């Protein structure tokens, strides 16, 4: 009898374990694509984004994934140019068969690669695409990066509060980059709206390293404020060369220089740059505190905006999947339906993220445009030896 019992118990256990295994096998992780710049000149921002996304994957899987089913990020290098990002998108869509894609790093790449996702009806979340017209690419394109039109003018206003006599403004921008061209339009409009004198507009390329000619032209008009829209290395070099050649006034930087990665280039001369922010590590909320703690544990510093936005992108996907799964189980949907339903769900949700509370506005033929409650302006403060610096929030 006892032998029969033990055989029965063993059989029952086998069936249970087998069933559990079968259940696990039936629920493989949900693949979410991440295509950011892991190589090329923008890799620096891309690496920050990879880190933010990895922290999100670990964090949300630890907190139950999508109602018990884990997510799995599929990374595909989007490079720093358009062809690489298009290739990465096509791979994620057709080979990895992801439910949605977070990426690419640059607005310029978004204009090239996102239409492929729109055609394949795959939801895309732009983590750092802030140029004008991104959600208008198509109804499957949303972004969690506040557009420059909303964020940028705050920095000019902060400069006017610091220097009450501020009048003459020089603007410089990288003319070979879609995002910086769009950002400078916003800055130039803000200068006009605020009744300031736009004394000169100078252009450069993101690949330039020598800005002597532009700096000479800027110094000739004796500005009180210089506004720079460039990427990290060119932007930081421009600041350095402006200071080397004697410019002492205020500097406002755009989103491209919004990273501690500029410190090694302009060192002590980075001091005082004002930059509008979509993220502040000082923002108090449970999710930001937890995100910040994990990031700090890994990197020994506060998270930058690029990492926070990447975390947010993955969070939006996960929370939208959770909400969708509760309405109608996603395991029963085929991939094409899941992608369309996920897109609909993510645009309609509200999310408590490290960036603050966000939701999306939308319109005919467009995806989700971020509606972000919080906006910040920070000023860079460097140690006198230029070895270390911090973003001090002034607004």
């Amino acid at each position: 009898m006892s032998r029969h019992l033990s055989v029965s118990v063993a059989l029952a256990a086998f069936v249970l374990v087998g069933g559990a295994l079968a259940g696990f096998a039936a629920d493989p992780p949900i693949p979410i694509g991440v295509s950011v710049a892991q190589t090329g000149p923008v890799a620096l921002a891309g690496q920050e984004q990879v880190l933010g996304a990895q922290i999100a994957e670990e964090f949300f899987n630890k907190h139950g994934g999508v109602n018990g089913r884990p997510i799995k990020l599929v990374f595909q290098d989007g490079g720093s140019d358009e062809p690489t990002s298009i290739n990465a998108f096509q791979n994620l869509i057709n080979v990895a068969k992801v439910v949605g894609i977070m990426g690419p790093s640059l607005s310029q790449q978004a204009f090239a690669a996102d239409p492929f996702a729109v055609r394949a009806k795959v939801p895309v979340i732009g983590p750092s695409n802030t140029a004008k017209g991104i959600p208008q690419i198509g109804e499957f394109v949303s972004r969690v990066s506040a557009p420059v039109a909303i964020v940028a003018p705050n920095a000019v206003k902060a400069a006017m509060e610091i220097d009450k006599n501020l009048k003459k403004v020089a603007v410089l921008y990288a003319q070979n980059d879609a995002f910086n061209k769009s950002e400078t339009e916003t800055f130039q409009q803000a200068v006009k709206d605020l009744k300031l004198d736009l004394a000169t507009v100078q252009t450069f390329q993101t690949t330039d390293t020598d800005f002597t000619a532009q700096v000479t032209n800027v110094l000739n008009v004796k500005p009180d404020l210089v506004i720079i829209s460039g990427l990290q290395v060119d932007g930081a070099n421009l600041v350095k060369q402006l200071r080397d050649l004697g410019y002492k006034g205020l500097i406002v930087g755009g989103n491209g220089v919004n990273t501690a990665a500029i410190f090694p280039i302009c060192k002590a001369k980075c001091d005082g740059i004002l930059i509008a922010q979509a993220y502040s590590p000082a923002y108090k909320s449970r999710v930001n505190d937890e995100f910040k703690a994990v990031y700090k544990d890994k990197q020994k510093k506060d998270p930058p905006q690029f990492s926070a936005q990447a975390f947010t992108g993955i969070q939006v996907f996960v929370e939208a999947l959770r909400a969708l799964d509760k309405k109608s189980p996603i395991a029963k949907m085929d991939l094409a339906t899941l992608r369309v339903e996920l897109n609909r769900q993510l645009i309609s949700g509200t999310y408590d993220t490290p960036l603050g509370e966000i939701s999306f506005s939308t319109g005919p033929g467009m995806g989700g445009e971020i509606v972000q409650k919080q906006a910040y302006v920070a000023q860079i403060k460097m140690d006198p030896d230029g070895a270390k610096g911090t973003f001090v929030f002034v607004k």
Partner: protein
Amino acid sequence: MNRTLLLQQVLNGLAIGSVYAIFALGYTLIFSVLRIINFTHGAIFTLGAYATYALTGSQFGINGLLAGATLPFRLPFVLALLGGSVVAAICGVIVERLAFRPLRARGADPLLTLVSSLGVAVALVNVTQYLFGAEPYSYPDPLEALPAAVNFGTASAPVLVRTVQVVIFGVSMVVLVLLTYLMNATRTGKALRAVAEDTTTSSLLGIDTDRLVLLTFVISGFLGGVTGTLIGLSVGIAGPYFGIAFGLKGLAVIVLGGLGDIPGAVVGGLLIGLAEAFVPAQYIAYREAVPFALLFIVLLVRPQGLLGRAQVQKV
């Protein structure tokens, strides 16, 4: 244009041009001996800059395999520059052994050597990114005690040039003199010119061509290291692709000056720098087109470049 502005633009042009010139010197040296374009020069230049950075005892960032690594010692900048340049010279030797010698031994078409050097350049850039990450670095500033800019004008009408650019100009002139001396006034230089003229004949005359080719790569690599460090001092090490950006411009410089002509590289570099500096502010977006437009015009008139010798076709 008033006199102050004119002087400012001339000095700006010379400052930009000396960067191109110093980069192109290492490039043109290889061409002068081997008649091949060495695309690895930009990658070796970058590696040299990173090596100097490591030797100054500075710490690597957070993204590469060497994240957080630092050497247990700290060299003064000038010694680190020499050490970094030696590392670059060693890289030059490895590149010669791996990418050039096997092809030369088989008498391969120069085009294959060009492709091989391009392949090695891409590999080197990626190894650099793998080791050091993509973040920019800059050196502890050895010129800190000096003012950031030198005034070539008066107190009321200043004409300012960054001190580091004055240093780069000086170094490129010194390198020019040394290389010209080496090529024209030493036995090694004569042997190098003989190898450049005809490898087989010079080898029959008892010249160890392999050793001389190797020497050329050592000098070119060393120069790449010096250049990478000096330009890194001026604009920071912008990441693993740092040197590649100079490659195309360097090519324009050596073709303009005359392929393989050492003073030609300097003249070409300075001319392109001056041409760029005089692009009016409103057309500055087209500055990149200037060197190539200039190159086009010069090549129409003098296909051998400004200082190059016309090639005699052997029949």
